[in-house]
């Protein structure tokens, strides 16, 4: 069984100005003290089709992790993404992936209507769609001695389906027909 379960990821200071850092307050529960650190990453999904364009925006080790409920804030300066993934790995194996859509839009309705050719970052507001995270959990080997397990434990229950990973347009986000169609016209992809 998974030794670590994520209880909540709260997006702090949301919405916020475009250039302000991302802040995620992550609370998780650990059922048995971990021998090693957890590695958390924030990943920018460059392309829905391939992991090749994934960029790790930041990664941080979290530890030591005794049994109990814990909390920390994951802060990073990355800007301008449209989809952000938070993943956690233990011994190099990913066991949870949380995906958020990010909406970048002008606060000023006029600018929103007629966005300038060159984006005016100072006017942009970043809004993480925090109420709708996509959570995927994976079975991993928490001990050193066992065989690797690769089954997917659960997928987003709201979708009620068990799509295998490689079929989903955004890896692990489990939402078909994604970014271009869903994002508002004036949203920016600035990387």
């Amino acid at each position, binding site marked *: 069984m998974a030794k670590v379960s994520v209880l*909540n990821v709260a997006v702090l200071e949301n919405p916020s100005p475009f250039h302000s850092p991302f802040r995620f307050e992550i609370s998780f529960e650990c059922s048995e003290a971990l021998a090693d650190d957890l590695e958390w990453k924030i990943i920018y999904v460059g392309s829905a089709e391939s992991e090749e364009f994934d960029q790790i925006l930041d990664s941080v080790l979290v530890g030591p992790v005794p049994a109990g409920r*814990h909390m920390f804030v994951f802060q990073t300066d990355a800007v301008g993404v449209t989809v952000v993934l938070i993943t956690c790995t233990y011994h190099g194996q990913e066991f949870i992936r949380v995906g958020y859509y990010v909406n970048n839009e002008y606060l000023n309705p006029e600018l929103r209507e007629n966005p300038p050719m060159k984006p005016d970052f100072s006017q942009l507001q970043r809004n993480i769609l925090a109420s709708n995270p996509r959570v995927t959990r994976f079975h991993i080997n928490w001990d050193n001695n066992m065989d690797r397990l690769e089954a997917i434990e*659960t997928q987003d229950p709201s979708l009620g389906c068990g799509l295998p990973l490689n079929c989903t347009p955004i890896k692990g986000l489990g939402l078909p027909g994604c970014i271009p169609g869903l994002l508002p016209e004036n949203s920016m992809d600035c990387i």
Partner: protein
Amino acid sequence: MKLLKPTWVNHNGKPIFSVDIHPDGTKFATGGQGQDSGKVVIWNMSPVLQEDDEKDENIPKMLCQMDNHLACVNCVRWSNSGMYLASGGDDKLIMVWKRATYIGPSTVFGSSGKLANVEQWRCVSILRNHSGDVMDVAWSPHDAWLASCSVDNTVVIWNAVKFPEILATLRGHSGLVKGLTWDPVGKYIASQADDRSLKVWRTLDWQLETSITKPFDECGGTTHVLRLSWSPDGHYLVSAHAMNNSGPTAQIIEREGWKTNMDFVGHRKAVTVVKFNPKIFKKKQKNGSSAKPSCPYCCCAVGSKDRSLSVWLTCLKRPLVVIHELFDKSIMDISWTLNGLGILVCSMDGSVAFLDFSQDELGDPLSEEEKSRIHQSTYGKSLAIMTEAQLSTAVIENPEMLKYQRRQQQQQLDQKSAATREMGSATSVAGVVNGESLEDIRKNLLKKQVETRTADGRRRITPLCIAQLDTGLKEQNLVKELRPRDLLESSSDSDEKVPLAKASSLSKRKLELEVETVEKKKKGRPRKDSRLMPVSLSVQSPAALTAEKEAMCLSAPALALKLPIPSPQRAFTLQVSSDPSMYIEVENEVTVVGGVKLSRLKCNREGKEWETVLTSRILTAAGSCDVVCVACEKRMLSVFSTCGRRLLSPILLPSPISTLHCTGSYVMALTAAATLSVWDVHRQVVVVKEESLHSILAGSDMTVSQILLTQHGIPVMNLSDGKAYCFNPSLSTWNLVSDKQDSLAQCADFRSSLPSQDAMLCSGPLAIIQGRTSNSGRQAARLFSVPHVVQQETTLAYLENQVAAALTLQSSHEYRHWLLVYARYLVNEGFEYRLREICKDLLGPVHYSTGSQWESTVVGLRKRELLKELLPVIGQNLRFQRLFTECQEQLDILRDK
């Protein structure tokens, strides 16, 4: 009979393999296949029982679901206490779940809010041992053991008091083991397997009692499970799938001689599950009918692959009821409610059915008392020794007693309400850490959290712990914290290397090895406390010696015992204690002016240092918080105060030193000739004078594995054969205080008489000598196999030994502990004479008389105070109310004087 299929009990269409109703009847668990994993769900029972509750949206139907099993869950079972749930699955694991009370409801992150778990059940133990799918699990009566069976052909017995300890692995089946059941009296466990056999195992020695094959000869391994069941009166064992004249049956096996003359016939396909009603029934007395007492009977439900269910009464030749086509697929499991009137059935088709019977249909259930009387008369013992009901008929003769009983009831009530209050404030408790609300923490989390860089330059955050889990883990930690500091690591080390010492060729190597470890310990390992210092060393008996004379290089007299002597070293350091930090440094043969060689002794205590010089080389040193002593060559022993002042002129030992020890102001010297001396250097008196170890080491290749000097200057020797002797200075005798192989300790069962968890961790020399190995598992093992009378005798003898040992060791704390346990046991089991004798001794003469030899204290405890502590214990059993009153009155008289 009413039949209901609650459609909301489902695993989203996936098969449900197991169902079990909680002993308190308020909830039930199902186990089976989940989306991509195994699934255990805990459901609320009231919406099944009452239609109003089913319609009420405020009443949750699902209480908790656990997706932690990696593969299909084959079995879920509540412990008899209802505290734990065990689940076993295709992932080869058994998980034991416990409800977490003070962490409030939570949702599964990322799922919609409705799926919140109302109750929190967390996995407290994962039992890994099986190499294949776990098919069935079963808790023994009284929850002492948990049994599991698997497709790896084995049955494993787990110590339920101490997970994940395995007590036994039952091997013998040559096919997949698919069902388990315990004898209600606890003497046997039965298993049924695909190898066409049903095996009955004894719990006494975990060996095979019998293997029954005949009724299964024609069976093919076609069922998913073979859940067999034992009748509540213990008379019958009923198998799952058996065959009779090529028809599927459930075979009835009689306990008496394991005869197989009867069966339940009628199902068209293999029987998958049999489940006895937990109640024993008797015919409902109809008004006007003859008052002829009817024989008590049992009731049994049988489920089959033919999708039908039959319910039988053992007094009827035909089934009470048969329900055909209850499901679309095979029946997988059955569970009765504790009152015996309801039954839940689950099926491979993913649905569950509930049957509700009336008492007219089944009969009058016997009370637990009547049931235990049946056990008592049939098996000579009962699981419930004295029930509340029996007591309530006794008349309370004395107002004090009445007051006391009332007070106790009130206390219980208070405790209950306190507990409920705690439950009520559960969420608020969870929301506060160290007096800070969760909101405050969140505000400052970023500032507060510690961020460091690892060696390779990566960021590392230390997460803030906001709640600890109230699981078994925490209890274990507590136990660790509560461990007395006196208990050093080395004591457990020496336990491990209790030498076998059979062949003398081995013992030489062993000797060297042990001496080495002793020295290592002295040099390296920090001592936590100087008061009690077990050190391991080996003593060689003459038999071993003659074989290796050359190795010893000592011309010892042929029949004298010879202990190893420390060899002189250039320098060594000895840590006496770490808190306060105190260590001794020795430097031998430091050349001083004029070619004179001296040895230097340095002592550092919390930074304060003193040093002194001696004229001969120092062989060994020891220290305590009061004294430092060193043994030198030429058999000299010197004692210094904590500030380095010489307390005595050098003592000349009768033979070279072997081991030196200090505790408080006591100094113990064990010489190479195996004589032992203890002195109190402050009072300057001898406690033990050159006492020979000959009497305790006589015989075979015994070695001393551990030496202890208590705070009262009593030396204790732990020997390699598991026995421990202490020297009683007042009697000048060696007394046996502990024996690891003591069969009494293994048979004794006094768990019900133990005061409470923390008091159990009574610390002191006796606990150190005997070790803290909880053999409650073994105790329980004997509980079921030994007749109750024998059990009582052994328990009494064991407890009396403990009391006497604590007394001999002058360990007042432990004496009080064991005396209270002993008294409680006497009270529980109703031994009046011994109890009266204890009280008499504790009370002493009420009226002063000159001829009295009575001592008012025992090991520093006031006897009458002890008696006051005993009184509430005595008051718990109404049978002793006269004794209670007598003591109470006499104590009052004494107080008034």
